């Protein structure tokens, strides 16, 4: 529970500082524009929440995209019906996602292992298919749910005359696009991180780790595992709902594809890549994937040809055509390979990689025996 080098308050302060300063330190990487920064924060929230379920209890949900989707729909409806203010939208998003998570979790948690994964997948696919077909009055089907001039916006209409053109989302008058939008998401992310940290360090978090480790022993110890797991499921569903509503806050539309199972797969990958069961790992995983997605999909063969123009023509052609498979629309190929490489070579994710590097570094300076106690004190939660 102790890392020795850093207490939780400093850890939290560093995290908050790093997140808020993202526009500064991401500049050299060319990633300091608001759209991408917002995605980092939003998917960071999604992954941190997913990790509370998967990382702590070990239940692998393949249906978390459903909560992301319902969060978006609820937020857009809040914009349409009540007000363009972001706060009610976020509250509705979290609330509805929590409700859906309660229902799905209540049923799915009757089973464990792969049966649980398939149940969550089945529920998410049902939500997706319904959003596409029968629920069109609510979801606007294939087109996706959008704002329109005719929306009532009951609360807003009390205060201001509707202007020409679509209104934009705001936080008590501050427009939620560009940097203000990012900072709004960043503050949410920091709050989410704080809650997640509290959960990791709480007796409740310890119980969840117990469920992952040995559910039998939990039962014979007098602990009722189902409400614990269900609470974790609902919390992580609410995180996903928050992420979904923030997606709508920064760009007020919602489509069914957000609920598709590939979106569920993506959050699993983010969590795994960063490090399952670690505090900051999922955030790092989410950031890396969104960053590379952005970079890689922006490349195309012309850009590549430019980069490799220093090579002789015949060589550069080959290089470009090979690399061309991995960039642009081929980004998914890179993603798939990344998936495999991480699971095969680095099951603990990037955080484990960092740990390994650090312990190697330490062992070169300290006696080996000493290092052994240090590493065994490092809980999976660090």
């Amino acid at each position, binding site marked *: 529970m102790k890392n020795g080098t850093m207490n939780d308050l400093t850890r939290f302060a560093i995290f908050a500082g790093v997140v808020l300063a993202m526009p500064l330190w991401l500049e050299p990487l060319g990633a300091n524009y608001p759209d991408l920064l917002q995605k980092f924060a939003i998917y960071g929230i999604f992954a941190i929440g997913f990790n509370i379920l998967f990382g702590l209890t070990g239940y692998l949900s393949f249906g978390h995209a459903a909560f992301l989707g319902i969060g978006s729909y609820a937020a857009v409806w809040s914009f349409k019906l009540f007000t363009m203010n972001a706060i009610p939208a976020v509250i509705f998003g979290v609330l509805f996602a929590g409700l859906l998570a309660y229902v799905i979790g209540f049923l799915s948690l009757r089973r464990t292992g792969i049966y649980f994964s398939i149940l969550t997948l089945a529920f998410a696919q049902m939500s997706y298919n319904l959003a596409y077909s029968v629920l069109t009055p609510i979801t606007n089907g294939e087109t996706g749910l959008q704002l329109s001039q005719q929306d009532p916006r009951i609360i807003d209409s009390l205060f201001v005359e509707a202007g020409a053109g679509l209104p934009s989302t705001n936080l008590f008058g501050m427009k939620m696009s560009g940097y203000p939008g990012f900072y709004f998401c960043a503050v949410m992310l920091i709050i989410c991180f704080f809650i997640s940290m509290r959960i990791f360090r709480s007796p409740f978090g310890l119980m969840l780790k117990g469920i992952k480790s040995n559910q039998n022993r939990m039962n014979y*110890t007098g*602990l009722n595992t189902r409400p614990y797991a269900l609470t974790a499921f609902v919390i992580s569903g609410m995180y996903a709902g928050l992420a979904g509503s923030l997606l709508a806050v920064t760009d007020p539309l919602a489509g069914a594809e957000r609920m598709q199972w590939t979106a569920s797969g993506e959050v699993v990958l983010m969590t795994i890549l960063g490090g399952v069961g670690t505090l900051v790992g999922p955030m790092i995983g989410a950031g890396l994937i969104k960053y590379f997605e952005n970079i890689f999909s922006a490349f195309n063969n012309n850009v590549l040809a430019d980069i490799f123009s220093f090579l002789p023509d015949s060589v550069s052609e080959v290089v470009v055509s090979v690399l061309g498979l991995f960039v642009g629309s081929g980004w998914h190929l890179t993603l798939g390979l990344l998936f495999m490489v991480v699971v095969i070579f680095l099951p603990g994710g990037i955080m484990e990689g960092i740990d390994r590097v650090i312990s190697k570094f330490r062992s070169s300076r300290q006696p080996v025996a000493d290092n052994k106690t240090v590493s065994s004190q490092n809980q999976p939660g660090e």
Partner: protein
Amino acid sequence: MEKLVLHLDNIQKNFGGLSALKDVNLQVEEGTTHAIIGPNGAGKSTLLNVCVGRLKPDMGKVTFDGHELTGRKPHEIAQIGVARVFQTPEIFPELSLLENVMIPAFSKRDGAFRLNGYQQLSAQGELRAEAEHILEDVGLQELMHHIAGSLSRGDKRRLELAMCLILRPRLLLLDEPTAGMSRHDTNRTIDLLKQIKSRGMTKIIIEHDMHVVFSLADRVSVLARGQIIAGGTPEEVREDPKVKEAYLGGAH
């Protein structure tokens, strides 16, 4: 005469066509240590499984101190005060020894479920002290921060025992608690179990090692082919010809 605290009435359990337990009746006095011995496949572990709710008997009922245990879920039975040490240690291999003992400590304090997500583990000084104390009792306090999965088999058993003891159970079921232990460790465990005896906990112990049985048990029941064929003090049982035939005879 102390009061009888555990009653097993006409317990029957069949697996397919095979009957594992046939009409088993057993009463255990409060505060005593009751050993169940018998050859392999006699149904000893099945009997414990019925007690803790892992198996539901086909017929008969188990009552502990007025609570009927049959048909209840394992965590409810545990909350009534029945703890069990398994034949293969059931611990939390990925967690530290301290955490392994803290989990049952919370179960004892907070019950089967409590949403305590905002408290911090670091603020649980009292429970932590208790956990460290129990680990000291079983001689594992120095390994407190190690990962439980890295322990030797004997140490895992002692850890599991500590996890059960911190629950302060009123009935402790032990399934071969010394199997696979060295003579030295076995004696240490016997001493530890004798110590608890003075705390007034009822114990049922399944054991092959006669040394352990005779050092600990107040009473012994002999189970063979799903039936109790003899019972009494260790000395009486030792002299019983039926027992010799069914069990001791084969072993000596």
